[in-house]
C-alpha cells in the first residue's frame, strides 16, 4: 500500500471529522446545497440557482462566525453499567454540575471515543473481509480497505442529545443513550458538550476529559431451545459450585436404617410395612455435560463471520434453561473453559464477558482445537459445534466425534456467497448440519 494514499485518506478522514464537529446535520445539508448551487448555478442567466447560492453562503458564514466562542466549566459524572449488549441501546444517567457563573441552555451532550486514526502499519497489514472480490482498481486504491478499517474501529454510536437547562452552580441529571455497535470494549475518552449557533447550522464543541470503559457483550439473538440428544451418562462430580453438599433428591432404593443416617431420610411407610426403620437411598447427583465449540480459526484479525459465530454461541448459551443438562464446557482458542452456565445469573454474565473478549486465532491451525476436544472427550455427553468453515481439519473433528458416538449439533456460518470449502464436493460430507447465513441471521437462527 502506498504511503501517499494512506496520507491522503488520513487527511480526508480528518477533514470529514472536522466538518462533523463544526457543522450540524442541517449545516452539512447547507454545505451540500452550497456545493451543488456553485456547480450548477454559475450561469446567472440560465437559472436562479445563484440566489440559493448567495443566501445559503451568507447564512453559513454568519452561522460559522457566531459559533466561534463557547466556554463552559462543568463537572460530569457518569453512571455507566459495567456491561452492555452489542446492538442494544444503552441508557444511563449522567450528572452534570455547572461550575461556572453563566446559565447555559440547549447544550448538547455526546460521548467521545478515544479512538485514533489507524497507523500506516495497521492499514497496510489489514485485509478487508471479502477484499478478493473487489476489482483490481479498488484493490490498488485501497479505499474500501480504509473504509472497512474505520468502520471496525467505530465501536459505538452516540448522537448529540439535548440536556436540560444548566443553571449556574446547579446540578442536573439526564439520561443518555448510546448504541454499542460491536462486541469488545468501548473506551470513552470523555464527554463532548456542544453549543449550536442561532441558525442551527454550526456548532462548537468542548471536550471534557473523563475516561471510562464499558464491556460490550456479544449481540444476542432469540434461539429456540436446543434439545440435546444423547443419553444421560453417569458422571461423578457435577457442578463444582452446586453446593449440593449432601445427596440429591433422586431416589434409588430403600435400605435398612444404619446408625448415623439422618432421620429425615426414613421412609415411614416402608418402616410401617417392615417393622424396622427403612431409609431412602439417594442417588448421587449427576448431570449430562455438554460442550460448545467455537471455531475461532480465521486468518484475519477481524472477521464478520467470526463475530456472528460468537453471537450464535452467546445466544445459545443464554437460552439454556435446562436444569437437566448443563452446558458447561466451552472450547475456545487454546483453552477449554469450565463454567456452570445454566444456573444463576452471575455465571451467564461471566460467560458473556469471556465471549466478549474472544479473539481470532490468527496464525494457528484448527488441529489444536481437535486435539483439545479429543483430550476432553471423555467428559462430553454431547457437543454443539459452531464452525466458520468446513475443511479437512474440521471434518476430521466431526468424524472423530461421530466415531466416538458423541452426538453433535453442527452449525456452519456462511457468508453472503453461501460458499465454504466443504461445499465444493471434494469432501464427503455425510452428516447433517445447519447453515446460518450471516446476512439472514434472524431467520436462519430460528431453524436450529
Amino acid at each position, binding site marked *: 500500500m502506498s504511503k501517499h494514499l494512506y496520507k491522503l485518506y488520513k487527511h480526508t478522514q480528518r477533514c470529514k471529522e472536522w466538518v462533523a464537529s463544526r457543522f450540524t446535520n442541517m449545516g452539512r445539508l447547507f454545505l451540500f446545497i452550497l456545493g451543488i448551487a456553485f456547480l450548477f448555478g454559475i450561469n446567472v*442567466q440560465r437559472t436562479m440557482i445563484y440566489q*440559493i447560492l448567495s443566501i445559503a453562503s451568507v447564512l453559513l458564514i454568519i452561522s460559522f462566525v457566531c459559533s466561534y466562542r463557547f466556554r463552559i466549566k462543568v463537572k460530569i459524572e457518569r453512571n455507566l453499567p459495567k456491561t452492555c449488549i452489542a446492538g442494544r441501546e444503552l441508557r444511563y444517567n449522567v450528572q452534570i454540575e455547572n461550575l461556572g457563573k453563566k446559565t447555559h441552555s440547549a447544550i448538547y451532550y455526546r460521548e467521545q471515543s478515544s479512538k485514533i486514526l489507524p497507523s500506516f502499519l495497521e492499514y497496510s497489514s489489514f485485509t478487508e473481509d471479502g477484499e478478493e472480490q473487489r476489482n483490481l482498481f479498488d484493490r490498488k486504491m485501497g479505499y474500501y480497505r480504509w473504509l472497512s478499517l474505520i468502520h471496525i474501529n467505530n465501536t459505538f454510536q452516540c448522537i448529540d442529545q439535548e440536556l436540560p437547562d444548566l443553571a449556574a452552580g446547579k446540578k442536573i441529571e439526564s439520561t443518555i443513550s448510546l448504541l454499542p455497535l460491536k462486541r469488545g470494549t468501548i473506551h470513552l475518552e470523555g464527554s463532548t458538550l456542544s453549543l449550536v449557533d442561532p*441558525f442551527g447550522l454550526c456548532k462548537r464543541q468542548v471536550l471534557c476529559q473523563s475516561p471510562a470503559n464499558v464491556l460490550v457483550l456479544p449481540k444476542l439473538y432469540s434461539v429456540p431451545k436446543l434439545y440435546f440428544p444423547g443419553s444421560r451418562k453417569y458422571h461423578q462430580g457435577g457442578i463444582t459450585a452446586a453446593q449440593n453438599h449432601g445427596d440429591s433428591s433422586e431416589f434409588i432404593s430403600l435400605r435398612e436404617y444404619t446408625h448415623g443416617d439422618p432421620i429425615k431420610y426414613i421412609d415411614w411407610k416402608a418402616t410401617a410395612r417392615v417393622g424396622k426403620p427403612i431409609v431412602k437411598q439417594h442417588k448421587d447427583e449427576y448431570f449430562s455435560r455438554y460442550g460448545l465449540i467455537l471455531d475461532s480459526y480465521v486468518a484475519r484479525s477481524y472477521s464478520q463471520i467470526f463475530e456472528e459465530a460468537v453471537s450464535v454461541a452467546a445466544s445459545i448459551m443464554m437460552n439454556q434453561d435446562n436444569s437437566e443438562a448443563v452446558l458447561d464446557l466451552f472450547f475456545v482458542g487454546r483453552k477449554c473453559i469450565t463454567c456452570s452456565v445454566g444456573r444463576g445469573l452471575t455465571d451467564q454474565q461471566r460467560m458473556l464477558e469471556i465471549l466478549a473478549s474472544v479473539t481470532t486465532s490468527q496464525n494457528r491451525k484448527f488441529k489444536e482445537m481437535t486435539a483439545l476436544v479429543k483430550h476432553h472427550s471423555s467428559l462430553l455427553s454431547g457437543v454443539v459445534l459452531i464452525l466458520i468453515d468446513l475443511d479437512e481439519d474440521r471434518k476430521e473433528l466431526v468424524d472423530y466425534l461421530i466415531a466416538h458416538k458423541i452426538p453433535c449439533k453442527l452449525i456452519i456460518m456462511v457468508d453472503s456467497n453461501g460458499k465454504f470449502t466443504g461445499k465444493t464436493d471434494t469432501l464427503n460430507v455425510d452428516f447433517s448440519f445447519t447453515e446460518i447465513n450471516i*446476512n439472514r441471521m434472524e431467520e436462519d437462527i430460528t431453524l436450529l
Partner: protein
Amino acid sequence: MKVPPLITGAALLFWGNETNALFIATILALFIEGSHLVKTRYTLKRSDFINISDLTSLAFMASVALILLNYEPIGFLRITTSWLPLTLSPLIICQLYSTSDKIVIGTRLGKQQNNESLKPLDFRPYYLTVCLFAAATGNSRSLWFYPVLSVLLIWLLFQNRGRSYSLLSFFLLIGISLGLGYGSILGIEETQRIIIKKTHGFWRNYYRTKNSDPFKSHIHFGETGRLKTSDEIIMRVEAPSTPPHLFKEASYSLFTNKSWIGQNNDFTLLPAVTETTWDLIVPPHKPGTAISVEYDLPKEKGLLPYPKGGYRLKSNTIFNIEKNSDGIVKVIDGTPVISYDLFYHPEMQLTTDLPGPRNLEIPESEKYALQEVINQLGVSTLADHQKIDAITHFFQKNFSYSLHLVGKESYATPLGNFLLHKKSGFCEYYATATTLLLRLYGIPSRYAVGYAVTEKSWLEKKYVVRKRHAHAWSEAFIAGHWQVVDTTPSNWVEEDQELSSFFTKPMDIFYFIRHQYRLYQVGSGVDNTLIYSIVIIVLTFILFFRIYRRMKIEQASSAKERINFRSFDKIVSPFTPIMDAIMQSKEHQRDNESFVEWILRLDIFPNLNSCEFEELYRLHLQMRYDPRGLDDHQLTQLRQGSEKYLTIIEHAPSIHSSQASKR
C-alpha cells in the same frame, strides 16, 4: 434535522409557481401534506422500499428519455431538474404514508442483489432541497423568488435553531443575512454582466460564426492569438464530377471599422415555380449540372450557399426563400437539415447583380497602406484583368498563409500591418486587401463569404465541407460580370487540414450518424416525437406494474395492542385553580414530602394555617377521587375555603417572583 410540517407543501407550490406547473404541484402538495390529516399508514418492508426506488429511477430515466427526445439537448439538464419534484415524489409519498419514518433508497436496477449496507434515511430535507433547486431552474426571473426562498429557508432554520440563543438574536441575524444575501445577489449579477462583456469580444474573436449575417461580416483582427477552426462537417455535396470550388453565401460592399457592411438591399420573397422549385435566375437557362447539397440549418433559417451560376433550386425541405438583387438567397423557413438540388451553369448570371458606387469606396484610414502596395505593383496602366493577375501574383509571391491574428502594432491599422509588415494571414485579410486594392485601381469589387468545397469524404461518396472550410474572397466586376479573385495562398486548405485534430476520423463517423439521423427525422415528415413519447410512457407503465405486483403492501393495523385510554370527564373542584397555580411553581414536590409540607416550603401563602389548608386539600381530594363525593356541607366548606385562598393567590405577587425574591 426537523422538517416543519407544511413546509414541503409550500415549497412544492413555490416550485409550481416558478415553473408553471401549478396544477401538478397542488396535487402533489395535497398528497404530501394530507399525510398529516389522513391517518392510514402502510407497513412497508425494506424490499418494498427498494422496489419503490427502482420505480422511481425507472420513472426518472423515462423522463430523461422523453425530455431528450422532445427538447434540445442543451436545455435537458435544466428541464430534468425542474421536473425532479415530480419524478422523486413516489419516494417522499411512500415515506410519509409508511409506518416507518425513514426510507431506504437503493436501486437494484432490477437485479436481485441484496444491499444490506444501505441505511435508512429521512428523505424530507433532501426532497425540500430538490424542490428549491427545481424552482430555481424554472428561471422565472421574478422578484418574488428571493423573498419566498428566504421565507422557506427561515422557516426551516427556525425549526432547527440553536436554542441557546434568544429569539431576538435569531431574528436579528436573519435580518442581517437577508440583507447581505440580497446584496450578494446583486453583486453576482453585476459580476456576471461584467464578465460577459469582457469575454464577449474574447470569444467572438475566436470562432467563426457559421450562419452569416447578410448585413455585416466581422474581420478578425487581433493582437495575439490564432483563429480557431473546427472540423465539424456542416455541408455535404454530391456531384457527378468535381463540384465548383466556391459556394457563396453573402457579399458585402462597405468596409468600415473592421467589418464589411452589406448593401441594404431589401430581401423579397421569391415565389416558387412549383412547390419545390425556385428559379434563382430568370429563364431561359443554359442546361447545366445538378448537384445535391445537404446543409445543416439548425435555426431552420439562414443564408443558402450555392456556386456561381446557380439558376434553379429544388428542395422539399425548404419552404420559403427570400432573395435580394445581388443574388444572395436567404432561407426563411426550412428544416434543421435542408437538402436541395442546385442547377448551375458557369455562364449564367443574374442580371440585377450590378455594382454600385459603394463598390468603389475606400476607407481613408487604409489608404496609406493600399497606396504603398499599388506603388509597389506599378501596374496602373495595364488592363483590368492584367491588374488582377498582378495582384494575385503579388500576394502569391510575397505572402504566406497563417491563422495568426494580426493586430495593428506600430501601424495605423491592422490591415496596414498585414500588407506592409506581417505579410502573413488568412483568407479574411487577403480578401479584404484584394477588394480594397481593386477599388484603388478603379475596379468595382466586393467582399464575399462562403465555403470552399474541396474535400472528398473518406466515408461517403460526397464532398464534405467543414466549419474550417468557411472562406472569404474578393469579387471584381470586369467585362460585365462579377469574377472571383481569390488571393489566399492556394495551399490554405491543406494548411488548415494539418492542424486538424487527431479525433477527426472518429468524429466524422459521429457526424455521419448524426446527419443520417437528422435526415431521417426530417425526411419522415410526421412528427415522430409524439409516437416515441407514447411508446416510452406505455413501456414505463408496463414495467411499473410488473414491479408493483411484486410489492405486497399491507395497510398497517395496530400491531401491538394500542392502549385506548378511556377518557373520563375531569371533575373540577373549587380547589382546582389553586392546584393549577401551585403546580406551576418551579420547585417540585420532593419524594418524602407531604403536600402540606411542600406548600409550606413554597411559602405561597403567608401565615398559612396548615391544619385548615390540609383539611381543604383533603376535601378536594375527596371530591375528585371518592366515588361517593362530598355532601352539601362539605361542598360549601370547600368552596368557601378555596375562594379565600384563591383571592390570596390572585392578589399576592406571582409564585415565581416570590421564589426569586426569596433567593
